[in-house]
């Protein structure tokens, strides 16, 4: 790449091997129109930091970058949304929605409604375990913490999700609708 650092093909391999997984990570958390920007920043970071990506832990490292990129974008959009809200307060006949106002919610199910009631950090550790199917050690890389901390956080998040699911079902807040089924996923 002109003006950049040579990567001896490692970046290209990284991109080819993991773009689908990183794309899926983003798709699970973002609306479709927000994914390109995040993907671009994730792999730009990967390209610039190619020599620092731990061998054997490339995907968790990329997930960790994606997580931070998404968090940064949410913060930026949140600020803009507050500004928009103030403007809309003066012009109540117009409505505008932010694509980052909430977690992506294209599918619905009691478990997802329950998940949405948890703190963002609880949601993320549960998603990394269930959706990205990461090990404790891999989640620790994504979150930049220790396996010990992840295990503790995951245990507490599972208990909170159990309670939230029970509460959601009891309150009948949602009606179950068909959701995609993951085929042959490992436990």
């Amino acid at each position, binding site marked *: 790449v002109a*003006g950049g650092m040579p990567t001896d093909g490692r970046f290209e391999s990284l991109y080819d091997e993991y773009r689908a997984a990183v*794309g899926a990570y983003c798709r699970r958390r973002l609306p479709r129109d927000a994914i390109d920007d995040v993907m671009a920043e994730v792999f730009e970071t990967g*390209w*610039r930091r190619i020599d620092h990506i731990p061998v054997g832990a490339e995907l968790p490292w990329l997930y960790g970058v994606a997580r931070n990129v998404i968090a940064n974008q949410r913060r930026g959009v949140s600020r803009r949304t507050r500004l928009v809200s103030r403007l809309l307060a003066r012009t109540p006949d117009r409505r505008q929605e932010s694509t980052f106002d909430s977690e992506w919610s294209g599918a619905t199910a009691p478990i997802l409604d329950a998940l949405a009631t948890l703190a963002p950090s609880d949601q993320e550790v549960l998603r990394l375990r269930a959706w990205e199917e990461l090990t404790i050690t891999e989640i620790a890389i994504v979150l930049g913490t220790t396996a010990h901390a992840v295990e503790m956080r995951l245990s507490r998040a599972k208990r909170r999700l159990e309670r939230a699911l029970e509460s959601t079902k009891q309150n009948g807040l949602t009606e179950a609708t068909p959701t995609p089924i*993951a*085929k042959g*996923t490992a436990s």
Partner: protein
Amino acid sequence: MNERIDVIDELRRANPVPNEQADEFTYLSAARLRGELRGTTDATVTRIDDAPSSRRPTWRGWPLARAAAVAAVIAGGLVVVTGDGERNTRVETATASVSEPSPPPPYLLDVDTGERTALNIVENAVEFQPSPDGTRLLFYQDGALSIADADGSGVVAIDVQGGPEWRPARWSPDGTRIVYQEKMEGGNVGNLFVHEVATGRRTQVTHLDLTTADWFWLAPSFSPDGQDVVFHLARDASSEPGFDVWSVPVTGGDPEVLVEDAAWPRYLPDGRLVYVASPRSMRDGDTLVIAAADGSTRTLAEAVNGIRRVNVSPGGARVEYVTGDPDDNQDDDRVYVVAVESGEASMLDIEGEWVDDHTLLVGP
């Protein structure tokens, strides 16, 4: 007991983008990516905020001193924070010398110089615990609590019933015993067991009904003479239960309250006890206390958010602890090392287990 729902399994079934379909969701065009990279130059790479995103500070809205501190940590340096009992977020000095990036864990971290030395020991292992004499390692490998020589050779899995919880097991001061907390059905952690290394004999030392507690991790460790195990216990299953520190003989028996309204107990070799005072939950115990045998106490450190995971160095010269709301983003966690006698504290960029009073073993 009610049938437990496997929420992870349910969540997995509700995955909006199953991994088998991930290829269908690759939206980024190669042309777009090339365009992004073309605008990036070598000069960009040298900026301090080009640290890995997981370590990148959020500059906007941060006090300058805190941002400088984080920048120094990113660069591999150490940050000296207040040692006078004030809040830990005040930064007095910061060293921002650029050093080589961290090797992948496990590695040794010299807390005085920030030097990191890669270790090539046991593979696929976590939660390393060096023995008090430094000759052996305790760790979890493939889910089994195991012991090996310090160079990683001679791995022996400890034969335990039910499988231990994935938490730090602790050596006794003489290295002859290990205390660990077993996993309960349903994924939460259960009672405490002491394992004798030489004989393999296993003794259940507590018989607690932990379903009544909000916080299941008991954080056990040994007394200096190795005859007792100390741990904390939540008083109930509420979100702000309060905690007490308990002690139980290694041979088992009735636990006794050692310190009321306290958590995260760890003994110094001289018999003084370090603990977090008055935590209603794991997010608000903000004072680390050191108590002498005569009952007198002094504040060792304070933090804005709850102090937890207290860890005493083998010689008792330093205490490592973590601050930050455990329910909040873990990126906000801060790891500190405080000198017991002077109260001087340093902030580290990662947590580890003590090898000696100057060195931490940082594991994956």
